[in-house]
């Protein structure tokens, strides 16, 4: 199981004022607040930790089918920071996940995965896109041989053989991100695959 989260740093800077009184205390654990205080770039630290919480929540939500708003429930601990790649652990709600994040000038993207799965090796696509569903139907995984759809309201990536695997979608500002598990499992009808790969969804930019 995996969950991911992308944060458009430009939008986050204007949309959220985490320096507001009481904000950090509502969202972050005492250990996380210390990391933010000590950080050379506190904005990056805030959004790194936040993206970890969101990615972990997506796993929790998918497994438990529960919706809650409890950012403090998950504690994010960055362990290795190499240039623009960060990895570490997330603990909370009785579970422990590994995470892997990528930092660019434009965004922070974090992938979390359950134990036994290395989040850094899961296939990821980041898209600069107009925010609509049609552009997401083609995620570009595997040379456009796969498409994205929803099963019971939750995202899966399906290949041409009609096999699907669990996926996670995130959207913020200018960015969409999709991550999927490595193995396809469970045959789904080829017809439903074709339905989402019909010409209407071929997704070339600029077409009406």
């Amino acid at each position, binding site marked *: 199981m995996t969950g991911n989260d992308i944060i458009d740093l430009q939008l986050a800077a204007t*949309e*959220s004022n985490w320096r507001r009184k009481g904000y950090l205390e*509502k969202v972050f654990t005492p250990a996380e607040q210390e990391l933010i205080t000590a950080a050379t770039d506190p904005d990056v630290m805030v959004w790194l930790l936040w993206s970890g919480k*969101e990615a972990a929540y997506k796993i929790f939500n998918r497994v438990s089918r529960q*919706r809650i*708003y409890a*950012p*403090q*429930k998950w504690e994010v601990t960055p362990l290795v920071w190499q240039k623009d790649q960060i990895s570490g652990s997330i603990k909370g709600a009785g579970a422990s996940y590994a995470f892997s994040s990528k930092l660019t000038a434009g965004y922070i993207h974090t992938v979390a995965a359950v134990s036994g799965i290395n989040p850094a090796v899961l296939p990821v696509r980041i898209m600069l896109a107009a925010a609509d569903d049609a552009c997401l139907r083609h995620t570009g995984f595997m040379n456009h041989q796969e498409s994205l759809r929803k099963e019971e309201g939750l995202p899966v990536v399906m290949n041409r053989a009609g096999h699907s695997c669990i996926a996670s979608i995130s959207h913020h500002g200018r960015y969409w991100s999709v991550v999927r598990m490595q193995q396809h499992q469970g045959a789904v009808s080829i017809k439903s695959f074709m339905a989402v790969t019909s010409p209407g969804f071929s997704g070339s930019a600029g077409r009406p």
Partner: protein
Amino acid sequence: MQMDRTTLLATIREVVTPYAKNQEALQQLNEDTDFIKDLKINSANLVDVILDVEEKFNIIIDNESMEKMINVKAAIDIVESKLAGS
């Protein structure tokens, strides 16, 4: 401080207005309105909604109550119970 649910709903509407991205859902705001799914409030802005609600009503929303703050009904229930002093 005694307030009926209609008054509370109006105050919640005022609080969420700057953060709501779906204006249509905001127009039709009711107790079933979901902050994230309907109003499309960014999850990082839901903290602002909670802080604003605390300030408006002079209450403290603990973590346990905050967990449930995903729709208007839950927000009104929480404010009502805090104002009642529980």
